[in-house]
C-alpha cells in the first residue's frame, strides 16, 4: 500500500472506530437510563425518603458547626463513650477538644459518598 492509500484507510478506520465507540457507549447510556427506571419502579416511597434524609442532614451539619450547646454535646459524647466501654468502667470526661482532621480532601469525599450510598 502506498502512503496515500494507507492514510485513506486510516481515515476510514478512524471514522468507523469513533462511530462504533460512540454508538456502543451511547447505547449503554440509554440502557442504563432504562435500567434506572426498571429498578426504581415501585420504590417511589423510598425515593421521597431519600430526599428527606438529605434535607435533614444538611441543616444538622449547619447547626453543629457554629456555636453549639456545649453541655449537650458533652453529654452525648460521654454517653457514647460510656455505652462503648461498658457501664462498669469508671470513666471521667475532663475535656473534649475538636481534633483538626488531616485526611486528604478526597478521602473525605469518598467517606461522604460511602455514607450517602448506605442511606
Amino acid at each position, binding site marked *: 500500500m502506498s502512503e496515500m492509500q494507507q492514510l485513506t484507510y486510516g481515515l476510514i*478506520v478512524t471514522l468507523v472506530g469513533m462511530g*462504533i*465507540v460512540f454508538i*456502543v*457507549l451511547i447505547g449503554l*447510556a440509554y440502557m442504563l437510563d432504562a435500567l434506572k427506571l426498571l429498578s426504581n419502579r415501585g420504590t417511589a416511597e423510598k425515593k421521597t425518603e*431519600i430526599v428527606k434524609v438529605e434535607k435533614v442532614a444538611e441543616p444538622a451539619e449547619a447547626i453543629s458547626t457554629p456555636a453549639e450547646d456545649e453541655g449537650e454535646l458533652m453529654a452525648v459524647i460521654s454517653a457514647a463513650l460510656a455505652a462503648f466501654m461498658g457501664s462498669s468502667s469508671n470513666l471521667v470526661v475532663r475535656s473534649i477538644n475538636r481534633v483538626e482532621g488531616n485526611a486528604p*480532601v478526597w478521602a473525605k469525599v469518598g467517606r461522604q459518598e460511602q455514607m450517602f450510598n448506605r442511606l
Partner: protein
Amino acid sequence: MSLLEAIKEFYFSMGFSAMTWQEGVMILTSFVLIYLALKKGFEPLLLLPIAFGMLLANLPLAGLNAEPIYQVAIDPVTGEHIHEMVNTGGLLYWLYKGVKLGIYPPLIFLGVGAMTDFGPLIANPKSILLGAAAQFGIFTTFLGALALNFIPGISFTIREAASIGIIGGADGPTAIFLASKLAPHLLGPIAVAAYSYMALVPMIQPPIMKALTTKAEREIIMEQLRPVSKTERIIFPIMVTVVVSLVLPAAASLVGMLMLGNLLREASTMQNTLLRLMKTAEGELMNIVVIFLGVTVGATAKGELFLSPKTLAIIALGLIAFSIGTATGVLFGKIMCKLSGGKVNPLIGSAGVSAVPMAARVSQKVGQEANPSNFLLMHAMGPNVAGVIGSAVAAGVLLSMCNL
C-alpha cells in the same frame, strides 16, 4: 590445557566479552527506569518489573529469551517423525507466552474490574459520553503515525500505527493487548511510553485543562450523585458484556474479564462465598500477573530493536495521543456544560482518558484549585471508568480493522 587457555576460555564465557553497545545502552536505560520507578514513583508497580525485565533481556549470553530448540527424531517404537526438545529455552520465553497469546492483559482486567466501582457511571449515564470523546486521542495519533510515513526514513505499517495510537487510551493492559497482537516487535517501547505517560498524567493534563476552560467553568459545583441500587450494580456488568461482545467480538476477552471481576465484586455483597474469588482476583492473581507481565514486556525491549528512530517517534506520538485525548474530553465536557445549562463541570471530561484513578484525581485537584469547595472526584470517576470501556472498544475496532 594451560592455565592461560583456561582463563581465556572462561573470559569468553563471560557476559562482558559478548556485550554489544546496544545492550550496554539498554542496561543503562533500565537503571534510569528503575530510578524513576523507585525515586520518582512513576507507576512503580509496573515500571519496576518492566525495567528489570529490560535489564535481564539485555544481559548477553544469559539466554533468558532463548527459544526452545527442537530436533526431528524418529520414534523408536512407532517409527514416526517426532519433535524432540533439545534445549528447553529461556524462562522469559515461556512467561512471554502469556503476553503473546493474550492471556495476561485480560487477567489484569479481571482484577481491575474487581477493584472498580462503576456506581458513579451508573448514577450518571451521560458521563459515559466523555469516556467516548477522550478516545479521539487514539485515532488522531493513529492517523498521525500514518502521516509520518510521508517523511522519508520513517515508515509505520497500519498495524504499527494502530498499536501506537492505543497509547492514547491511557490504559496499560489494553495497549499491551493490542500491541502484542498487531506489532509485537514494538511492544517494549509502547509499554514503556504508555506507563510513563500514565505516571505523568498529573503533569500533562492540568495545563491543557486550564487552557481550554474559563475560571467560571472550572468553578461549577455538580450535584450530589444519586445512590445506585444493588440490582443496577449487578445487572450493569452483565449488560455491558453482552452488548459490547455482540457489537465487537474482538473486545470480548478484555471487556468480558473486566465485567466478570466487577460482577464478583458486586455479587459478593449478596453471596458471601464470592468474596473469596473477588479477593483473589483483585489481590494475589493480579499481583502474580503484574509480575509476569511487567518482566516479560520489559524483556521485549532488546537493544537492537529498541534503539531505533521508531522508539523516539513512538514516545513523541504517545505524548500527542495523551494530550489530544485530554483536550477532546474537556471540549466535549464544555459542550455538555452548555447543553445542560451549566450543570456539568467541563473538567470531568479530561478524566475520560482511562488512567484510573489518576485522571479523576487530576480533575478533582484542578477543580478544587478554582473553587475550594468543589468535589469533582466522584463525578470524574464516571467518565474515568467509561474510558476503560471506551478504550477496550477502540482496541477491539483497531484489532478487527487493522489486522491486515
